[in-house]
């Protein structure tokens, strides 16, 4: 992918993340009190709301894509060997896929999993 396309993604995820993370923070202690926000029952009811579960999924993807792309940029600046460049790109994609997968697993299990 051209570097300009990756930077458009970086800029877009940055601006989207500002909005989504702000809302996420407000939900953790301002719009809802902190002790309520971190309680088991509150979280369970949040995952029962499909819109909010969707919001969390989008937040997850946006933040991780932005973060790992940022690390990719720092690593590309650090060394310029051909093998290093290739493994940085591969590692970035792997890190994004694995972390998004793990976070998505949490959301999916919270919504559809068997309560114990």
């Amino acid at each position, binding site marked *: 992918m051209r*570097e300009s396309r990756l930077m458009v993604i970086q800029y877009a995820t940055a601006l989207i993340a500002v909005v989504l993370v702000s809302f996420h923070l407000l939900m953790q202690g301002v719009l809802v009190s902190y002790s309520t926000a971190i309680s088991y029952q509150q979280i369970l009811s949040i995952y029962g709301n499909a819109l909010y579960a969707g919001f969390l999924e989008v937040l997850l993807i946006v933040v991780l894509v932005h973060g790992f792309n940022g690390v990719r940029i720092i690593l*590309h*600046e*650090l060394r310029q060997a051909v093998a290093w460049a290739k493994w940085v790109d591969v590692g970035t994609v792997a890190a994004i896929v694995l972390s998004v997968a793990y976070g998505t697993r949490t959301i999916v299990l919270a919504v559809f999993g068997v309560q114990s």
Partner: protein
Amino acid sequence: MTRDISLRVQRFDPSKDRKPADKEYRVPWRQGMTVLDALLYARDYQDHSIALRFSCRQASCGSCAMKVNGRARLACYTQVDELGSDSIVVRPMDNFEIVKDLVTDLGSFFEKHKQVTPHLVRADDSEQDNPTGEYVMKPEALEEILQFTYCIKCGICTSSCPTVATDAKFPGPQALAQAYRYLADERDEGGDLRVSALDDVHGVWRCHFAGTCSALCPKGVDPAMGIQLLRRHVLAGKGPRGPGEGAKEFARSGTGTGSEST
């Protein structure tokens, strides 16, 4: 009132020394003394072996760029009194290989400049090989590029750039600002080639607007502005004008009074 300046100069001769070390010289201060004056005094009267570059002594040539008290500056353009200290530490510019003492190898710097095709490109080569007149360029169009033409290639911006500190393939602020200078020049028709060359993992996108290049440029070029304006064109994937859309030639008539060709 006279006083002595403490001038600590980094000395390093790769043919003899294992690593750089500072050497101190005491230089008698005088009104209006520049760092270059102090260095030349030390060289002329105390240690003839100090290696440094200088030429015009008036901030026109860019030869005497070096690090003075932690920031890259032109030695001829830096008054001792403006440093606010009688203790001056002089080092070679960062991120360029040291040839000896304060002299650095600017070969890679000039190579990166060449890589951005720092001359006008026209779709029709014959215009440049067999010109019939000058190109028309309005004053407003000149203002778009004028400040970027003031670059004296001293290397201060590139030396101070945080990306250059680790990324050997990054063109640096000087080359990128000159790339914008030619891209924005309404006589140039090579925009598409210029932007595609810079749309690279080590190209224009590795600038993060730290701004030190513009803060330290002794000629007011403001390379950071040029680079951010360049990004839009790289993002668009094409230059501001295509082949045949550049400023036209001002064809001279036989009587010596010109007439516009378009």
